[in-house]
């Protein structure tokens, strides 16, 4: 790794075990590349990131990069069989029966349902008599509205709706549950829809996620038990005065990393970045430590915003983090999903009448 511009402190590098940790990360990433980096080697990306930082903060950036929790796609995919087995065991049925009896909903649609079924050797993913195609709460709500407002019989849609509500379980699938905000709102919408359409069935909600944090658990409040494959607690979190943080040998390093994060969050380009304006507003802080003060160093196949922006933030001429993310939300617009749910609830009497339920 080029170090021409980094103020090298052998004591710091040794105490924080920088070289060995970065070496491990580099090999993990060589084996399972971080795709949004488009093939640029980690060493080059780290060098590029450091080049944009004030000299006195560079060593703290190195400390953060060395402590990245890198979770490649392959590791996460292998968790699906474990998760299905765990849930099936809790309910007391076989994995095959679990999928027979479950309607699958994806919190942020990105192909997780397909992965879950493939990893569990479940055939017939596209069979419309087994799996409803309304595989998100927005899709289901939209389907209900279309069905309710349409004067035609809409037989296919009727079958899809009944198939979803007739299943005893709704598996609510997430990749990362980091702050819990999205899942909390999603589960709430699910509950309201189930309540409005209880004549069709009363499915039990079973939220599952590959990754969960203790912060998300606190936010969700434990109304439903969440099954997860990996749980990260305060030991993995960069926060002021976090005595539990397991990343750094010295408190001075943790404080330095926080100074570095604040430095980035104060840059005019960051504050005024149009791609982030809504996210920062939603976060309720300056997002120095990530969305909702995350402070995580978790890097999944698309680094989450809850992780430190010093890892993922990218703006040409200002700073380029070593794990650039492809933004999945630019607006964080509120109300879309909520409005859709409200619309579906309003149309419930008509939908139920059309499906043959009286009263």
């Amino acid at each position, binding site marked *: 790794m080029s170090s021409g511009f980094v103020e090298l402190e052998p004591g710091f590098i040794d105490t924080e075990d920088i070289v*060995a940790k970065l*070496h*491990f990360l580099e*090999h*993990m990433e060589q*084996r399972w590349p971080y795709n949004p980096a488009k093939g640029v080697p980690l060493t080059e990306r780290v060098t590029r990131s450091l080049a944009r930082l004030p000299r006195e903060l560079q060593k703290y950036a190195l400390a953060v990069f060395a402590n990245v*929790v890198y979770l490649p796609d*392959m*590791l996460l995919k*292998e*968790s699906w*069989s*474990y998760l299905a*087995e*765990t849930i099936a065991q809790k309910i007391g049925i076989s994995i095959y029966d679990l999928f027979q009896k479950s309607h699958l909903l994806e919190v942020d649609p990105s192909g997780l349902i397909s992965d879950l079924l493939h990893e569990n050797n479940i055939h017939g993913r596209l069979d419309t008599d087994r799996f409803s195609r309304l595989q998100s709460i927005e899709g289901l709500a939209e389907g209900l509205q279309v069905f309710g407002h349409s004067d035609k019989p809409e037989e296919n849609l009727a079958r899809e709706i009944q198939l979803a509500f007739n299943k005893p379980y709704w598996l609510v699938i997430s990749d990362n549950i980091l702050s819990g905000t999205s899942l909390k709102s999603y589960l709430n919408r699910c509950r309201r829809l189930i309540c409005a359409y209880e004549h069709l069935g009363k499915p039990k909600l079973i939220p599952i996620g590959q990754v969960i944090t203790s912060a998300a658990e606190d936010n969700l409040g434990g109304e439903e038990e969440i099954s*997860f*494959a*990996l*749980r*990260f607690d305060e*030991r*993995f979190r960069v926060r002021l005065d976090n005595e539990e943080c*397991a990343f750094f040998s010295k408190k001075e390093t943790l404080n330095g990393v926080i100074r570095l994060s604040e430095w980035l969050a104060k840059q005019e380009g960051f504050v005024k970045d149009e791609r982030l304006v809504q996210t920062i507003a939603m976060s309720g802080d300056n997002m120095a430590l990530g969305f909702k003060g995350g402070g995580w160093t978790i890097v999944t196949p698309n680094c989450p915003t809850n992780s430190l922006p010093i890892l993922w933030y990218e703006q040409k001429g200002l700073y380029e983090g070593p794990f650039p993310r492809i933004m999945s939300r630019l607006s964080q617009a509120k109300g879309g999903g909520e409005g859709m749910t409200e619309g579906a609830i309003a149309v419930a009497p008509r939908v139920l009448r059309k499906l043959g339920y009286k009263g």
Partner: protein
Amino acid sequence: MRTLFDTIELENIIDLCKKRPTVLVATPNYEERSVGFLQWFLKECDPSTIDPTRIIIHLLWPKGTSARVDLLEQLKALHFEKITEPLKQYTVDRTVFSYPNDFNDREIIDHVLRTLEYFPGEPYNLLIDISCMPRLVLVSVCHAIRQFFLSKETRQQISVYFVYASPGRYAALRYAQNVGGIKGYFSGRPIHDCRSDHLSAIVFPSLQGYEGKLLYDEVRTRISSSVTAFVAVNCNDYLTSLATMRANQFLLEQRDVNISYYFSIKDGLDKLAYLLENEASRAAERIAHSKLILVAPFGPKVFTIAACFMLWNLKDNFEGIDTEIAHVSGFQYLSLYSLGLGNMSGYKLTCED
């Protein structure tokens, strides 16, 4: 005949003890956890629901001969004192055997086979605490159980369960390890001497990591070979998983090593069974070539038991396959292997005709 290995809740084991008499085999040693399960078990056995005369405790008592032994024997006695009182109402059999020097596997097999004599002609539970049972002894115990299963009469008579108590923490390794060669449990010979046209190795890396490297170097001396590493991911403690991964960085770096992650013991057992079946089926298609399937359970001890029975299943069902379980004999530089008591888990071994 086919054996199946699965997880079971410890509370269910207590319920089973209410229904049938039980022989509990344990190996107390100088580690605190070696009496952890016994302590819990004796506390859970309420005399009003479980008749104490229907439980026999069979202690396999390893006795070493080296200089550090006196201290360790004192520690062993200290831990054992914790259960002396509750043990009084039970029949306790103690078998002292030499270990590690002069270890005789036949002696262990005979002692386990003797459990049949406790409840002649009556179905009973055989409960084996493997927490501190040396792996060499454990393989001998598995051999004895296989002998039970081979006879239809005894197969129907015993229900076999294993329990494991993990340590609170492992002792700090102060000095570099010096290791010997890799040997096979089944043959007792160095792996290097096991001839075959192709070798498939499946390794469960340990927290130390050196065994995996040693195995890889050995396997790669073969003309035709493949290596799969099953890496543990601890759902609630990724730091431990990270430590194991970093200790085994060498394996993760090798592009010719297939890496698979498992998230629980049950997940690991399922993935191991699937891979072994796959390997054996592929080997069976190439009859002209001999194949050695080698499992190297350097990680959690329960995989040693699983590997024993899964590999015997393969031998019974596929022709032309040789199987072996690898172990590394090294010096012990640690004063104590582990400290404290962690979690306890249970496993069930069933046999199908």
